C-alpha cells in the first residue's frame, strides 16, 4: 500500500529537498523588520535564545538575544540560518492524498474524515492496538502531552512512542535508576565553576556548541578537561587528557577509572555512607577492572586511565557530562550508570560547580520525555505500569484506570510489529524514521507494508513520502508553547508568524482528529496555554512537577527549572543538594556494572568498527537542515572518516570513493583520511537518506532496558571501488 507513489526523483522535484539561501525577496530587499520575536532555536536541546526578525508577517532573519542567560547571544550556524526554513519552496501548504502518480491536494475536512475513518476501520478489523502513533522530541511540552493523551484517549492504542527513543532513553533510564529523577542534576552555570570536567561521548563542539563556552569559562579559571571519545573532536583537541576509547567499551573504561580512583584514595566515604546504597557490590565488581587489566580491551594505556582518575580525584569540584556517544549502545544504560558510579563514589554532586548532566539532543529532549508520549510513561514523568500513577492520571482525565491502555511498544518495536502484521496503521508527527532508525532497508519495508500511514509534517520528509495522507502541520515558530531545555529549564517558544497556506498548528490537527475519533470532549483547547495549564496541573505531585510554572513566570524569570510545585516556588536549578536524591529513601543507588561487548563486534569478514554521529551544520535526520543552503554548503554530503594507517593498509587515498559494507547493506561515499580517529574505527555522519544513509549499515540491536539502538558500534568492511582503483587524489 505505502510504496512510494512516484519515483524518488519526481518526489524530490516536487517536494524537495531544495535549497534556500536568502530571505524572501533576497538580501537586498530585506529592509527593516517590523518586530523581533524573542524565542528559541528550533534545533538542539541547548535551546539557545534567539530573536526572529519579522517583516510583513514573514520571518526575514535572526538577531542574537543577548539577554537570555543560557547562551548570551551565542549561536551555532544552525541557529543563525534556521530562519531560511520559513518561506521555503518545499513547505507543505495544504493536505495531500496519495494518488497513482504522487500526491494530490484535498480539503481539510475530507482529509481529517479520511484519517479518522481509516483509523477506525483498521481498529475495527484488527483491534485497537493495530494502529500506532509516533511523536517527536522537537515538539513543545504542550504537543508532547497532547500526543500521549490523543493516543490513549482518542485512538485508544497502547502503541505510542517517540523519536527520543533514539536519543535520551539510555540517559533517562540510568538517571532514574541511580537518582530516582531523570533530569540534568546541575544548571549549566555550574560547568563554568568546576575544577575538572569530564566529557564522555559528547562531541560538544558540533552537537551542543554553546556548551564549549561553559567549558572554556571553567578552563579560564584553571579547570582541567578530560575527553573520552574515539574521535579527536574539536573540543577534544584542546583537552588536558584525551582518552581515545574503543567504541563500545565505555563501561569498562569508567569502571577502570573508578578502580584507579579507589586506589588513589579518592572515595568520599562519608558521602557513600550517608547518601547512597549498593557500594559494596559495586566495589566487588570493580575488582576485575584494574586499568592494567582492561587497557587492551578499552584501547587506552593504563597510565592514561590512572591520570584521568587522578585529575578527577584531586579536583574539589567536578562536572561529568555525557551524551549519545556512551548512550547509543546495547549497554547504554550500563555506560550511564558506570559514569554515575564515579560521580557518586567521589561525592561530587549536588553542589555549586559540582555535579553531573547528560546533554539532551533534541530541542525538547527533556520535556518531551516527561509528559506521556513515551510507550511506558504518563504525564509528570509517571510510570504507566504503576497502579497509583495510573489512578492519578485516569482520575484527572476523567476516565477509569481500566480505560487507560497499558505499556506499548518502543519505536523500533513498532516497526517490528508492522513487519509482523500486528500493527497495520501509523500516524506520525515530527519523526523521520526512514533516516533515523537503524537498518534503513528494514524500516522502508515496514512502511511499504502499512495499510494506512498518516504523516503530519511541515516538509515532506523521506518517511512522509510513503504516506497515504499528509497533513501540513506547523514549524516551531508558527505556534506558542514551552520546551524544557538541557538544564531542565522550562522556557517559552513564541509564535513569530502564522502557518502559511492552509497549514495548521499541530495541536489543532490532533484535536480535530480526536473530535472525529469520538474523544472530542477531552480535547477542547482554544490555545496552547490551555493545554499547558492542564499539563501542569496533571504533573502536580509527579517527579517532573510543573504545577507552579506559568507562561508569565517563565517570562519573568527567563525560564523556570522543574520541579516547581507551587506558584511561590522559584524552581530548582540544582538537584540533589545536601545529598537528597529522588528515591523514596532519599539515597542514590550504585549499580555494579559488568562489561558486555557490543552486539556486533568485528571479525575477519567485517574487521572495522563503524561509529555514527553528527556534523555541526546538520541536525538529526536533516528534514529541515538539508533544505537550508548555507548549511548544506558547509558539509554537502557524508564521507567516511578513517585514519591514515587504515587507509594505507587498504590502499585508499583521501577523497577516493569507497564502498562501506555491513551485514545490512552497503554505502558508497568518499574517504576522508584524517589522523583524528582511532585507526580501528571509521565514522559516518547519519543526516542523509537513501544511498547516503549511514543507517543502511547500522545494526538492529537495542539496549534491553532503554530500547535505544546501537548506533555507535557496527562491524563493516571497506572496499575500494574498481573504477576508482587507479585514481589518486592530489
Amino acid at each position: 500500500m505505502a510504496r512510494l507513489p512516484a519515483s524518488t526523483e519526481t518526489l524530490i522535484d516536487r517536494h524537495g529537498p531544495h535549497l534556500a539561501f536568502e530571505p524572501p525577496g533576497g538580501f537586498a530587499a530585506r529592509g527593516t523588520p517590523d518586530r523581533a520575536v524573542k524565542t528559541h532555536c528550533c534545533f538542539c536541546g541547548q535551546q539557545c535564545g534567539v530573536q526572529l526578525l519579522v517583516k510583513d508577517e514573514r520571518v526575514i532573519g535572526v538577531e542574537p538575544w543577548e539577554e537570555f542567560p543560557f547562551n548570551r547571544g551565542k549561536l551555532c550556524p544552525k541557529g543563525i540560518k534556521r530562519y531560511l526554513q520559513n518561506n521555503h519552496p518545499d513547505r507543505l501548504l495544504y493536505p495531500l492524498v496519495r494518488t497513482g502518480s504522487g500526491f494530490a491536494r484535498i480539503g481539510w475536512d475530507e482529509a481529517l474524515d479520511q484519517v479518522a475513518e481509516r483509523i477506525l476501520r483498521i481498529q475495527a478489523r484488527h483491534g485497537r492496538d493495530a494502529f500506532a502513533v509516533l511523536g517527536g522530541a522537537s515538539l513543545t511540552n504542550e504537543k508532547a502531552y497532547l500526543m500521549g493523551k490523543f493516543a490513549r484517549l482518542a485512538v485508544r492504542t497502547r502503541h505510542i512512542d517517540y523519536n527520543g527513543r533514539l536519543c535520551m532513553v539510555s540517559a533517562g533510564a540510568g538517571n532514574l535508576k541511580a537518582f530516582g529523577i531523570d533530569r540534568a542534576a546541575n544548571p549549566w552555570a555550574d560547568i563554568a565553576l568546576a575544577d575538572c570536567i569530564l566529557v564522555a561521548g559528547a562531541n560538544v563542539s558540533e552537537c551542543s556548541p554553546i556548551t564549549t563556552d561553559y567549558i572554556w569559562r571553567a578552563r579560564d579559571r584553571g579547570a582541567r578537561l578530560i575527553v573520552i571519545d574515539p574521535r579527536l573532536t574539536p573540543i577534544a583537541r584542546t583537552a588536558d587528557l584525551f582518552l581515545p576509547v574503543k567504541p563500545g567499551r565505555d563501561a569498562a573504561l569508567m569502571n577502570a577509572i573508578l578502580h584507579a580512583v579507589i586506589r588513589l584514595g579518592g572515595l568520599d566515604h562519608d558521602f557513600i555512607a550517608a547518601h547512597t546504597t549498593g557500594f559494596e557490590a559495586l566495589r566487588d565488581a570493580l575488582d576485575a577492572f584494574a586499568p592494567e587489566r582492561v587497557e587492551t580491551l578499552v584501547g587506552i594505556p593504563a597510565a592514561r586511565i590512572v591520570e584521568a582518575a587522578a585529575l578527577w580525584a584531586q579536583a574539589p569540584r567536578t562536572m561529568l557530562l555525557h551524551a549519545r556517544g556512551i548512550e547509543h549502545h546495547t549497554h547504554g544504560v550500563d555506560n550511564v550508570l558506570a559514569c554515575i558510579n564515579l560521580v557518586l563514589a567521589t561525592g561530587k554532586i549536588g553542589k555549586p560547580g559540582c555535579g553531573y548532566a547528560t546533554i539532551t539532543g533534541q530541542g525538547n529532549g527533556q520535556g518531551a520525555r516527561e509528559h506521556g508520549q513515551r510507550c511506558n510513561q504518563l504525564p509528570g514523568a509517571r510510570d504507566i505500569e504503576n497502579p497509583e500513577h495510573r489512578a492519578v492520571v485516569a482520575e484527572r482525565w476523567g476516565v477509569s484506570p481500566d480505560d487507560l491502555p497499558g505499556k506499548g511498544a518502543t519505536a523500533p518495536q513498532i516497526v517490528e510489529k508492522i513487519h509482523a502484521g500486528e500493527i497495520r496503521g501509523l500516524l506520525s508527527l515530527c519523526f523521520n524514521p526512514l533516516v533515523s532508525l537503524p537498518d534503513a532497508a528494514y524500516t522502508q519495508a515496514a512502511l511499504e507494508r502499512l495499510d494506512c500511514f498518516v504523516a503530519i509534517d511541515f516538509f515532506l520528509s523521506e518517511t512522509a513520502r510513503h504516506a497515504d495522507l499528509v497533513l501540513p502541520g506547523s514549524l516551531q515558530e508558527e505556534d506558542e508553547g514551552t520546551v524544557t531545555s538541557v538544564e531542565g529549564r522550562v522556557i517559552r517558544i513564541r509564535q513569530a508568524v502564522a502557518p502559511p497556506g492552509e497549514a495548521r498548528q499541530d495541536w489543532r490537527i490532533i484535536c480535530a482528529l480526536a473530535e472525529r475519533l469520538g474523544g472530542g470532549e477531552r480535547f477542547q483547547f482554544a490555545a496552547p496555554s490551555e493545554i499547558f495549564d492542564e499539563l501542569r496541573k496533571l504533573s502536580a505531585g509527579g517527579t517532573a512537577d510543573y504545577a507552579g510554572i506559568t507562561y508569565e513566570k517563565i517570562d519573568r524569570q527567563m525560564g523556570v527549572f522543574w520541579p516547581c510545585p507551587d506558584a511561590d516556588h522559584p524552581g530548582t536549578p540544582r538537584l540533589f543538594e545536601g545529598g537528597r536524591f529522588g528515591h523514596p529513601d532519599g539515597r542514590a543507588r550504585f549499580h555494579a556494572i559488568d562489561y558486555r561487548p557490543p552486539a556486533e563486534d568485528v571479525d575477519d569478514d567485517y574487521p572495522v568498527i563503524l561509529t555514527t554521529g553528527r556534523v555541526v551544520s546538520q541536525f538529526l535526520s536533516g528534514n529541515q537542515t538539508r533544505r537550508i543552503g548555507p548549511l548544506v554548503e558547509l558539509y554537502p554530503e557524508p564521507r567516511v572518516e578513517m585514519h591514515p594507517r587504515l587507509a594505507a593498509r587498504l590502499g585508499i587515498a583521501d577523497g577516493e570513493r569507497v564502498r562501506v559494507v555491513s551485514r545490512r547493506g552497503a554505502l558508497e561515499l568518499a574517504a576522508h583520511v584524517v589522523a583524528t580517529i582511532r585507526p580501528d574505527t571509521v565514522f559516518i555522519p547519519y543526516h542523509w537518506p537513501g544511498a547516503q544513509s549511514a543507517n543502511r549499515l547500522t545494526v538492529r540491536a537495542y539496549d534491553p532496558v532503554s530500547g535505544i539502538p546501537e548506533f555507535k558500534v557496527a562491524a563493516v568492511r571497506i572496499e575500494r571501488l574498481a573504477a576508482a582503483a587507479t585514481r589518486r587524489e592530489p
Partner: protein
Amino acid sequence: MSQAAREPRALFVDAGRCIGCHACEEACSECAGHGGQAMIHIEYLARAASVQTAPTVCMHCAVPACASVCPADAIKVDATGVVLSALAERCIGCGNCALACPFGVPKIDPVRHLMTKCDLCYDRTSVGRQPMCATVCPSGALFYGTRAEVEDQRRARPLDQFRFGAQVVRTLNHLMVPAATDLLAIAAGTAPRARAEQHLEEALC
C-alpha cells in the same frame, strides 16, 4: 575616566578555542549590507593531521599595507583605527590589496570588481554593540571588547605585534597567544602537536 574605558574596543581572536563551527561566517553573512557574504573565514590549518581551525579576519593594521598599495586610494582608515572596506566608487578590483595583506584578508569580488573585507561592523559597534561574529561565537574564539576586559577573563594573552620576515606589523585587533609571548613570528614549518593528538597516537588497537 578609567583606563579600561579609554581603551579602544577590538576583536580578540583565539584560534586555540575555535571549533570550526562557522557560526561567525554565517552571522557575518547576515549583517546589514553583506548580502549573504561573510567577511570572516574559517579554515582548517591541516585537516589530515588535526581538527584545528582558525578564523581569518581583518586585523586592522596601524599602517595598513592594503591601503598603502591601493592605486585608487579606495581604502580609508577611520578615526578609531578601523581600516574600512574599499570604497565602491573608487575600487578598481585590481587585487593589489589582496596580494599585499600579510594576513591574507581582502577578497576581490570578480563580478563587482570590488574588494570586500571586514570593517568591524560599524553599524553595530557605533551603537555600543559587538560585531555579530563575536556575539555568536559559541567557544569564545572571537571576543569583542577592551584589552583590559580580555586580560581579566582569559589566561591566554592578547598580542598586537607580528613579524613577517623583517617587517613588524601592529594591529588594532589582537590574537590570543600563550602567556609570555610578546611578538609572533610567522614562519613555515610544522605546528607542534597538541597533547590530545599525542594521546590519540597512543591508542591501543
